[in-house]
């Protein structure tokens, strides 16, 4: 600092002092100064500015508007080269001992040496000047090219100011945001704009809380004050612009900030300048960049002892880097591309459930259960096939124990028609069907034999019509019998129990069509309808497949309704579906309040002759339900 010694000007007239604060009279200045006191709160702007200055580790420093020399006092023990501009003579004299030189003049008239100061501090000064931008520009000439400007300004968007203006008040106060000597009022954004219009670039911004102990003249160490300050900090955390009392920022010459500079090289420069780097600082450097915008410094200012190295330099450097990085369009494009990729799959997701929800639900009501009970009689367990005969009786194939049970139409009485022990050859009755004469046909899944019982429940005959593993059977109005052929097809027999060679094909045996996993059969007129594991198939009178549709649910037992539709059980999901003859899903049965599920592993299904009652062989009981197809 020997080559750029500033000119000592001594005192200047009080007339000139008005320039720095516009056209204010000395009396106003005096009264204003009287209210400026040293703040001990570590969050105050004075303390924070001092901390920033120490953290920047640069000198010489220029303190513009030194007043009582607060900054000089705070960092006096560091023996830094610090000059000041203070137009008001009494305070310039008071402060003189804390500064190397005092320019007692307006800033525009101060004979500052060019390109000298590494740090220029403007603590609550610019708002008092007529042309803050011009002030900054003139100071830039005194600053080194890489100098840092530390600026504080009152925040006009503070809650208290907003409320007062909302109430139509714009008071002239002795101090604070509405200080009568203020010529300009700034928000966070306009403050930055003002600074940047002078050719500086804002690197870092923060706010300070309201100095409540000073305003209220209270003990800052009291619990109440500490709690109030903590609350303020929290509120500032939520909204700095609303609760920040003073705006604090650092700035550098914009031209200095080169897009080619990298964070690493910047930091390495700082590191070289620093006298020491301890572990804390090294760690901070290794961490992701701290807040690039509204951030806050650590609250405690170490001014009397050797402080921990501060990170403001790194903050500023990182911020600078972020500020000068080109904003690549690819990043928002990447986001929107990803967003699109996320949104597109939502269409089928919504479509799927909307389509499913559009399927008509047919409310039904349970009328009762058909039970087997009595001394030494085992209840139903493992019910499978079920049929309703012309006289209204219901026949059920029960697999555990193996038997054929007959119920009265209302389920009030039952009769065990046949059982594995009493009926020769009956091992595991599975499917049940009936013809127009009231004869009941029982398909044994183990042997493939069909047992035919007369209307009086006596066994008429046992016929080996199919093979083991067959589990579906139905009889049309003409008495033709359709039985699944093992697990691979359907075979048709005429009413005299002869294979119908004219129907279907000859593979693997005559009168057969090949369909995998036949689970249910039903007829309407001459057409046969088949449900397999996941398909609905319509077969015409010649045994040709004329329609095939994928099922929404799983296939199961089938029966036809008087209106010419088909009901199918869906065992895995406890549902019963209704289809039209082409396999279009028309709806599903739900409870009377549209609740689901109302069935429990439905296996067999039958409708009463008049179609008003539905009998469903649930796992271990027969449920009797009201059936109104037009209820949907």
């Amino acid at each position, binding site marked *: 600092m020997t080559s750029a010694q500033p000119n000592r000007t001594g005192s200047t007239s009080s007339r000139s002092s008005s320039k720095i604060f516009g056209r204010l009279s000395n009396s106003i200045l005096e009264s204003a100064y009287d209210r400026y006191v040293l703040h001990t709160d570590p969050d105050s702007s004075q303390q924070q500015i001092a901390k920033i200055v120490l953290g920047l580790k640069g000198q010489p420093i220029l303190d513009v508007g030194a007043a009582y020399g607060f900054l000089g006092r705070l960092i006096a023990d560091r023996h830094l080269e610090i000059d000041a501009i203070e137009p008001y003579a009494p305070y310039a004299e008071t402060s003189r001992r804390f500064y190397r030189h005092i320019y007692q003049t307006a800033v525009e008239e101060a004979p500052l040496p060019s390109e000298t100061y590494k740090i220029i501090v403007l603590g609550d000064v610019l708002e008092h000047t007529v042309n803050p931008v011009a002030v900054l520009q003139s100071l830039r000439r005194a600053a080194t090219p890489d100098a840092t400007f530390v600026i504080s300004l009152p925040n006009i968007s503070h809650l208290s100011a907003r409320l007062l203006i909302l109430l139509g008040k714009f008071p002239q106060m002795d101090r604070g945001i509405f200080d009568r000597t203020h010529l300009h009022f700034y928000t966070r954004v306009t403050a930055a704009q003002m600074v940047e219009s002078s050719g500086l670039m804002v690197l870092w911004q*923060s706010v300070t809380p309201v100095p409540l102990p000073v305003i209220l003249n209270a003990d800052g160490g009291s619990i109440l004050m500490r709690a109030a300050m903590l609350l303020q900090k*929290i509120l*500032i*955390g*939520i*909204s*700095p612009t609303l609760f920040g009392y003073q705006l604090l920022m650092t700035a550098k010459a914009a031209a200095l900030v080169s897009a080619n500079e*990298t*964070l*690493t090289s910047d930091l390495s420069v700082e590191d070289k300048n620093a006298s020491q780097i301890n572990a*804390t600082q090294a760690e*901070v450097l290794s*961490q*992701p*960049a*701290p*807040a*690039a915008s*509204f951030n*806050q*410094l650590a*609250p405690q200012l170490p001014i009397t002892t050797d402080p921990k190295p*501060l*990170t403001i330099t790194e903050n500023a450097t990182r911020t600078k880097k*972020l500020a*000068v*990085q*080109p904003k*690549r369009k690819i*990043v*928002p494009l*990447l*986001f929107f591309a*990803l967003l699109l990729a*996320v*949104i597109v*799959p*939502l269409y*089928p*997701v*919504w479509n*799927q*459930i*909307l*389509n*499913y*929800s559009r399927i008509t639900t047919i409310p039904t009501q349970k009328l009762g259960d058909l*039970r087997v009970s009595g001394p030494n009689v085992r209840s139903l367990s493992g019910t499978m096939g079920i049929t309703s005969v012309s006289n209204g009786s219901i026949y059920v194939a029960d697999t555990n124990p193996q038997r054929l049970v007959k119920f009265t139409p209302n389920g009030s009485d039952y009769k065990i028609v046949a059982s594995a022990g009493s009926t020769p050859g009956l091992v595991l009755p599975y499917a049940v069907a009936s013809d127009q004469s009231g004869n009941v046909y029982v398909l044994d899944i183990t042997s493939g034999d069909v047992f035919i019982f007369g209307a009086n429940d006596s066994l008429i005959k046992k016929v080996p019509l199919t093979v083991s593993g067959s589990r579906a059977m139905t009889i049309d109005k003409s008495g033709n019998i359709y039985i699944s052929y093992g697990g691979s097809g359907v075979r048709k027999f005429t009413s005299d129990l002869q294979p119908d060679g004219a129907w279907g094909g000859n593979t693997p045996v005559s009168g057969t069509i090949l369909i995998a996993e036949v689970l249910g059969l039903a007829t309407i007129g001459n057409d046969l309808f088949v449900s397999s594991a*996941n398909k609905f198939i319509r077969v015409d009178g010649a045994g040709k497949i004329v329609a095939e549709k*994928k*099922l*929404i*649910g*799983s296939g199961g037992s089938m029966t036809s309704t008087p209106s010419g539709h088909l009901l199918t059980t869906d065992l*895995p*999901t406890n*549902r019963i579906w209704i289809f039209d003859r082409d396999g279009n899903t028309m709806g599903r049965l739900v409870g009377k309040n549209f609740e*689901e599920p109302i069935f*429990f592993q439905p296996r067999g299904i039958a409708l009463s002759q008049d179609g008003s009652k539905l009998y469903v062989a649930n796992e*271990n009981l027969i449920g009797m339900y009201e059936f109104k197809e037009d209820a949907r």
Partner: protein
Amino acid sequence: MKNSISSGLAGTSVEDKPSNGQWVLLLVILLFATLAARIIPAWELHNEIFDTSTYHSMALTVLRGDNIYAQRVFFPYMPYTQFEPAAMLLLAEKMNWRFDFAIKLPSILMDCVATAGIFLHLAKKRKNLLSAFGWTLLWALNPVSILISSFHGNYMTVVPVFMLLAYLAAGKANEDAQRGWWLAISALMLGLAIVTRTWPIMVLPAFVFLGTRSLRESLMYGLIALFPTIASALPYLIFSRETFLAEISGYGGFPDFGWLSVFRTLPYISGKVPGIITSLFDDISMGYSRTLFLVSVIALTFLLPLFRPSSLGRVILLVPLFFYWIYGGVSAQYLIWVIPIAIAIKSRWSLIFTLVATITIIAFYHTYAPPILYGRFPPIKIDQNVSAQIMMFGNIALVAISFIWSMSIFAQEVIAFIQKKWSTDNSYLNWVKPLIGNVVYLSIVILIWLGLFFSSVSQIAKRLSDVMKPYGI
């Protein structure tokens, strides 16, 4: 770019960057290694079994237009991913591939994405390229990842990869001028992780707390992260609430790994503990350990203000690590959760964890699911007694590693907090706003959890009522 050739890759510095050619070449090598190490076993194995078989059922159900939650197909996930198996089934039919191969492709693809992500992250300044290559190779040839993606065929790999991308994007937000966009991308990636397998919602607070700096950022982050889940779940909550909630809340994992597995393996070794008692013990223990785990995660969430933003990567790992040593229902595929991010942050724990997890997973498959390792026709003679013993000791080691690892992360953060090393970049301005956001999200999570809980209780009560009704009870 001086001396880039002569200096080689090791120890390269800012002034000594390798050329772009070297960098690209290494990336290509890594991608090729990732792909080859996974595609070959996926193609060679014919094992549509366990999870891949379930995925097939899901695909068939979805393609039929059915409500997957109304079906008794195992699908305790968000609706968003239901079309993934369906799409792979269509692809398999179109390309004439086996389904068990096609269904593994998304996981393999995501493994490649993770490889690229890790390498780009570790070699971002073209520094220490050899180190970046080595760490990325640990992922590219990671046996745990290969076992889960290519042998098991489980879709879980996708989740930690999305989390990794979320973490990398959050890191990028700290370095780039377009912080907001990167944070949005991070949130979107985390959202995809959440919508894929729900559990990453437990790491959302960590991202919100340590990755964002303002209330607006934290709210936006959470909103974007929850968007896919909410957007896909909404129609199901409207049109099929009961079945949807019953299905997604009805799965609690299996005690295949973790401390409970040690007890589960005992019957295999000693032959003295009746299976029924073990099963009962499983159910009870899983219930209690689930509660304990959830309490731990909630406690962790409230401790997040103590942690440093720079520790985001490590803090993310705490949730799965807690899961490993607290919860009893750890499945094989869950062990992949920590690996991608652990490698991305160059944690040496990832090495030991990978080693022990690999041995234990192989022992598990060998004992309980040989077709995963050997295909449809596993060797007839499999000594399950020995593999069960390996599994038992492997699980003890896994629990110990998870415990020590999580405690070391925790301890580092607490020590840093005590020493106030974080004070300058973690002051109140940084944590008050995310705290509020976090409380909001935690409240949402708790509400959802309570909703699921009561919904489950009502479902169980209803089912019991149905079952008991015939008996007049």
